[in-house]
């Protein structure tokens, strides 16, 4: 049984803690004096701590945003699934498969079957719809991008993806439409298209089963809500493929096929087989995980920018801490001289002031982490890989660890030079 690798941040923190405990345990360090000083000079302590808290809170929120996006992408795809596009297409949006192209793909060896013997193959049409939203008078009308997926067999499609409906909902009927009733039917002769919406969209638009919404030129009625939060499917609307094709000019065509195989290795093998050796059509097949992983490529730039901003802010904060500690030391040269005369060695003075800085950082950083934790579960929308995705911010243990490491680093860097200068104070001169 293999254990997951220990993150470097944990290793760093543990080593730091061990080093500190060793230093503190090796001899007397006047920690109570340092702690009392923080309390006595509480105004300066609070000002410095507030700056720390703000930086750490902001860092956690930014990381939670990135975390949420990354997690969404990672959970959007089963290891054993294969997505089939037309040759050369990198995205479902620009893929075009005719019915002839899609024939016999599901007879490929390695594809699983359901208890009724049907191959687990979902034929789909994927469209991104540009929807106007009414704005306040005088305001620019806003738009939103909505991922719409036309499905032939919804239960099969959900099964292939490992998704299910929330209780109280149903899949769309074979006809895929339902008559509008009441006020919604006024002025509209066409029936509403039955739709299953992802949890993210349902939460964002405050939709429940039975609600009617407008999408493109038609009205749509929510018949079910997918349990799909934290995956890209949470931001999708599913409906009958033929109807989606008719409304958006993709009749008699698919954009993708989704196949289920036993595991990741089989998915890789089937992908290669379909891409290189399938003679009946020019296809591009790849494991579904790899397909969604490519969407996360744009994340890397954002993640880099997040760290740059956070580190630069932290450097600013470090100078602030340094300022505070240097001022504190210059006011306490008498105390330091006295401590030296009492027998505290230079290195103990160094450790003492270093730990004072760390104490300040840890407490304020801890408050920052606690405030950042409140962001966990916040809902946000972002444009990623050609998709408008609804996701939740995630503050997990890794994020908190990064926050703590950040705090400790800021406190350590900010306190090191002042502590060295404290160490070099000459006792007799300081007492004159």
């Amino acid at each position, binding site marked *: 049984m293999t254990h997951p690798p220990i993150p470097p941040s944990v290793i760093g923190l543990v080593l730091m803690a061990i080093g500190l405990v060793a230093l503190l345990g090796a001899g007397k360090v006047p920690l109570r004096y340092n702690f009392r000083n923080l309390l006595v000079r509480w*105004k*300066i302590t609070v*000002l*410095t701590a*507030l*700056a720390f808290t*703000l*930086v750490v*809170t*902001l860092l956690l*929120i*930014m990381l939670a945003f990135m975390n949420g996006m990354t997690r969404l992408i990672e959970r959007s795809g089963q290891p054993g699934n294969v997505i089939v596009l*037309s*040759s*050369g*297409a*990198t995205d479902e*949006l*620009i893929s*075009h498969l005719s019915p002839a192209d899609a024939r016999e793909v599901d007879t490929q060896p390695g594809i699983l079957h359901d208890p009724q013997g049907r191959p687990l193959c979902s034929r789909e049409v994927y*469209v*991104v*719809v*540009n*929807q106007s939203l009414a704005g306040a008078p005088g305001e*620019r009308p*806003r*738009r*939103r*991008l909505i991922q719409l997926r036309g499905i032939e067999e919804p239960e099969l499609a959900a099964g292939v993806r490992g998704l299910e409906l929330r209780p109280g909902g149903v899949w769309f009927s074979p006809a895929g439409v339902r008559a509008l009733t009441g006020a919604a039917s006024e002025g509209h002769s066409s029936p509403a298209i039955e739709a299953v919406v992802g949890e993210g969209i349902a939460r964002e638009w405050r939709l429940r089963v039975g609600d009617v919404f407008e999408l*493109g*030129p038609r009205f749509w009625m929510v018949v079910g809500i997918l349990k799909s939060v934290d995956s890209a499917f949470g931001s999708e609307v599913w409906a009958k493929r033929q109807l989606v094709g008719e409304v958006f*000019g993709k009749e008699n*065509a698919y954009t993708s096929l989704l196949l289920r195989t036993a595991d990741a290795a089989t998915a890789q093998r089937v992908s290669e087989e379909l891409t290189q050796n399938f003679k009946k059509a*020019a296809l591009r097949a790849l494991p579904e995980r790899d397909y969604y992983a490519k969407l996360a490529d744009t994340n890397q730039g954002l993640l*880099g920018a997040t*760290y*740059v*901003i956070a*580190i*630069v*802010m932290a*450097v*600013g*904060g470090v*100078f*602030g801490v*340094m*300022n*505070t500690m*240097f*001022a504190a030391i*210059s*006011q306490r040269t008498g105390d330091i001289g006295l401590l030296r005369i009492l027998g505290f060695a230079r290195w103990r003075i160094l450790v003492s002031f270093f730990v004072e800085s760390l104490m300040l950082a840890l407490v304020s950083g801890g408050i920052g982490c606690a405030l950042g934790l409140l962001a966990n579960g916040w809902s*946000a*929308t*972002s*444009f990623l890989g*050609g998709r*408008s995705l609804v996701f939740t911010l995630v503050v997990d243990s890794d994020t908190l660890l990064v926050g703590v490491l950040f705090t400790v680093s800021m406190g350590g860097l900010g306190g090191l030079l002042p502590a060295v200068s404290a160490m070099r104070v000459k006792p007799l001169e300081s007492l004159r």
Partner: protein
Amino acid sequence: MIYVLAFIGSILLTAFAAFVPFFLLLFLGERGLDHLLFLRGARFLGMILKNLRRNLLRTSLTYLATFILVFVVTAVWSVLYFIDHFMAENTKGLKVIVAEKWQVNSKLPFTYADSLGRGAANPLRSEDVRPQDSMTWQIYQGTLDPNKQTRENIVICIAMEPRKLLTIMDDIWDEISTDQGKHRGKPTPEQIAELQALVEKMQDNKRGLLIGAGRLAAINKQMGDRLTLHGIEYKHIDLEFEIVGVLPKGRRYSEIAVMNRDYLNDALNSYPRTHGGVKHPLADKSLTMVWLQVPDQEAFSRIAEQIDSSGLYQSPAVKCQTLSAEIAARMDANQDLIWGMRWLLSPTILITMALVLSNAISISVRERRTELAVLKVLGFRPGQILTLVLGEALLIGTVSGLFSASLCLVGTNWVLNSLVENFIYVPNNALWWGPLIGAATALVGSLVPAGSACTVKVSEVFARVT
């Protein structure tokens, strides 16, 4: 990771390098003011400079912290500035985009081109408004190697009428400007003549391709080279090109190419001859968008109404909006990110700056209580002491803000952008953002300590002095 560390390192180096002008200001400024004591306020300013020089370490650390935080705010505001600029509606000389109403991946029949190019104006109605100019875009994406498609071997071609490069597509000259966001598209007569010659070449040779400098380098080709692009969306439509020229130097179109639309349309029309009489699946969906040039908002509204009410564009339906509205609509998908940058990130950095400055000034005031008491005994009024303390904070904040924003502008626009294509641009407005941010946060952060400096009680201070 290396780029991230190099970027941070360069900011720190710049911050330390910016000490030089700051210290010069402190030292030389004080010397200069000594000769100008006859000027009202010169003595006061001299005292401020002396106070800052007294504890160089604290002044330096405060300066550094402010410098670095203003740098970050300037970078964030630069991004927001350009987003706002591109989303701001022009009132004159509008460009309008007509594209598919519902789908993001706009695919219109080419038969729409002619009537949309006239703004759906009815030829029998003279009162209908016509656009000043129009242009069609069809997007052909091709790869040099169909078996191994990579970002480097893909070329995105805009299929259009070549002569429109000289008229409606005037943004081909644009750099992303730093000049209050105004486009700096002012080509020289020689540049225009060069482009005219290239346009004529493309009109004579339908296979001619104009390609952006960035894309030319990426596919490792040169002027005069021939290449075959294999259609990605336009499957089985493989086109041979000859590179006849490079698009004008400007970041906007550096990564794309321009081809003659007749070449693509001819290929689509001849497709059935080689494919058993069957039309290409995209034969009736080849038009991506139509651009219209209109004089003002009123003309745009009239044309939009003409298009909506014509009844000609039902399957698929079209939408007509200005370029800025189109950009804004795309930005709407990132509204949470933009909101976070504007209302979370920027205010947090500003508050942090105020706290750092407040901290530094508080420490300074606490250390100088005796001195402040002496000043009061000598006749300085509380308002003057307030001004003294605020002046110190304002001086550090304003100077560090000015230097930071200036170096951010120069370093990003002149240095980074020459190394990394399409890095952010810092607008010239940064030259007043920096001092304003520094001054405002210094003022806010130092109000309380300055207030406490005014209220120093002489009797209390001297009661403790032994």
